[in-house]
């Protein structure tokens, strides 16, 4: 990690520990913790790290923002940090400034379509938009009748937002745009299209999943070293040791795949199939790790881990629900598989080896 990444991650981790500690959140039985941690992040410029100072952001590099997202995953942070960061990033592509407050992006799924009519209004429906109900603004990627991409900023209040929640209980909403007039809009530059937005979102989710799994491993190992059964710490049973070794393998895979994708996007020089490989692999492998990893973590915890009082579910359920955002594993697998097939069998290894 670079110096600036270190500073940002340490700052954020202090905030998460002080203001978004999993056990305290559960004990509080309310959402009152959200505003203070959001304000602290916003005051430190961490909600808009990827945006130039001229557009209202903190002007950090992509790598720093990605490191922040993995740290947020480690805390299972349930405020729209990733969404705001991505929204700000999208707006900045078109030179649009970011407003203060929480944002989200639409579409948040690869098959979402929102159109910009000749009268300058947006229409269409975006399904499963994370935190739309908690956001003040939505950054929208829309298409005009002739197929050009446009980036627009809208007020969330101008849209119809359906009620909905993720597995982990965070807002996840259908958003209907019924001739919504944007606050601002501008053409998207070449290369910033739905695929680019999904790649960014998928990389962000991969890092959050990897982070959540890191913590799941951590608390599960700790628990195995405390819990006693048959007069032994359960961590002394070989079956438990081997389960935790498998969990460590899944965490390692998630951290590697997500870190590699983030590094690729941060470098900015890789495009096309190689970029797809990196990001698709991260989203697929992190999703698989979430499935296997969460199951092991719960198994080792026994009944206590199944209680609402215990912190484990904050990590395992979020890791599961993040799998579905910005394209689930099967979406990315089909995309990647099609590209690999189109290149042909003998071009598979050169593609893999190029990374």
């Amino acid at each position: 990690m670079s110096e600036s990444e270190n500073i940002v991650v340490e700052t954020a981790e202090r905030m998460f520990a002080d203001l978004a500690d999993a056990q305290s959140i559960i004990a509080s039985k309310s959402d009152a913790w959200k505003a203070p941690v959001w304000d602290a992040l916003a005051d430190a410029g961490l909600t808009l790290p990827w945006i130039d100072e001229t557009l209202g952001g903190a002007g950090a590099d992509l790598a720093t923002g990605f490191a922040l997202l993995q740290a947020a995953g480690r805390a299972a942070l349930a405020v729209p940090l990733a969404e705001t960061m991505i929204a700000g990033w999208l707006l900045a592509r078109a030179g649009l400034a970011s407003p203060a407050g929480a944002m989200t992006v639409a579409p948040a799924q690869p098959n979402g379509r929102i159109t910009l009519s000749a009268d300058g209004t947006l229409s269409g429906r975006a399904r499963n938009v994370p935190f739309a109900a908690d956001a003040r603004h939505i950054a929208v990627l829309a298409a005009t009748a002739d197929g050009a991409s446009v980036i627009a900023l809208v007020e969330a209040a101008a849209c119809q937002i359906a009620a909905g929640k993720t597995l982990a209980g965070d807002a996840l909403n259908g958003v209907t745009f019924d001739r919504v007039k944007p606050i601002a809009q501008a053409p998207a530059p070449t290369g910033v299209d739905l695929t680019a937005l999904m790649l960014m979102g998928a990389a962000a989710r991969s890092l959050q999943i990897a982070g959540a799994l890191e913590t799941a491993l951590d608390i599960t190992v700790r628990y195995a070293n405390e819990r006693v059964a048959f007069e032994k710490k359960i961590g002394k049973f070989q079956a438990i040791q081997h389960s935790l070794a498998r969990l460590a393998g899944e965490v390692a895979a998630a951290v590697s795949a997500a870190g590699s994708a983030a590094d690729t996007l941060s470098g900015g020089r890789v495009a096309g199939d190689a970029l797809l490989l990196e990001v698709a692999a991260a989203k697929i492998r992190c999703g698989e790790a979430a499935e296997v990893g969460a199951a092991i973590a719960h198994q080792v915890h026994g009944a206590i881990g199944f209680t609402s009082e215990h912190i484990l579910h904050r990590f395992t359920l979020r890791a599961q629900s993040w799998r579905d955002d910005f394209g689930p594993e099967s979406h990315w697998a089909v995309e990647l598989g099609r590209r690999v097939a189109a290149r042909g069998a003998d071009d598979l290894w050169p593609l893999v080896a190029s990374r």
Partner: protein
Amino acid sequence: MTAALTFDPIRLPPECEKLRQEVRTFLAEEISAGTFSPQRAQKSDDTDAPGFSKRVGARGWIGMTWPKKYGGHERSFLERYVVTEEMRVANAPVRRFFVADRQSGPVLIRYANERIKMDILPRICRGEVCFAIGMSEPNSGSDLFAAKTKATKTDGGWLINGTKIWTTSAHVADYMLGIFRTSAPTKDNRRHGLTQFLVDMKTPGITVNPIGQISGQSEFNEVVFEDAFMPDDHVLGEIDGAWKQATSELAYERSGPERFLETYYVLTELVRALGREPDLRGAEGIGRLVAQLHTLRRMSVSVAGMLQAGKEPVVEAAIVKDVGTIWEQQLPHRVRNLAAFVEPNVSNHETLERQLDFAMKIAPKLTLQGGTTEVLRGIIARGLGLR
């Protein structure tokens, strides 16, 4: 974090790309000369292999990271990584030199005397000698410290008696690095009493008996020692202290590309068989497998980068081998499933079937050789602070 696992996104440096092209060109020439066929994994260790080893040696691709005075090339672990992965993916016949390159040479560099190093290491680098690993015995596998094959002190050396088993390449090897019992274990250290030796396989008193495998190959052997004499300077490292020497090599042994690429060829053939526009099921299946492969490679390169930086990523390396060998073991099964609806008239149908058949047969060994899944998970659990 209790479990500080490090997997930084290390990239191969630019000089590796030139090297990769050189290796590919070399391999393409060998393939067109008929030395081996990438489509016939099961043939890869047959007759032409010694000539191949020497040509690889002549290119400077054996002992790449070793000191120049021993015939090495003082290149980086990451450059070695590129050569290793290109050879694996091409199904090149590397067995004759790979063990020496990966394991035995580094042990000699660390523990052999100067005369032996000057004698043997340059020959390894030239691709002239083959090494075997003599650890397992009929009653000592995972529990290496149960080894009984005995080394008894005699004038100027040691007499070896006993039996090693599953010794890969012993029938063609020039040397073996063996672990023999020089003392009984002590009360508080059951690992005490084993000593590592350099064994010249031409020594009188050594008999090699080939053992057939379920794959139809006969790569491993029983090696019987009857009063085989080893001179004193063939002792490697501390007498009775082999257990202290084993661990540091393991990170190299466990995390390389050979730990997930051993059945790669079935994936290539699957992609070929499914064609340029596979159906949804085929596309998704390929996509998942490629995602898993890419992730493993990124993990493995990360460990190589740590080794290059002089670190000892023991737990990370064990994780790469655990996850990697399970993946390469499952790969033929996944491919078989995805290939179920392949048209019988696709051009590579026969190749795919033959490759699958072979990969399914060798699959069981992948999670046994060089330390089983269970042993690896024990090492990982220790790294996590559970043991």
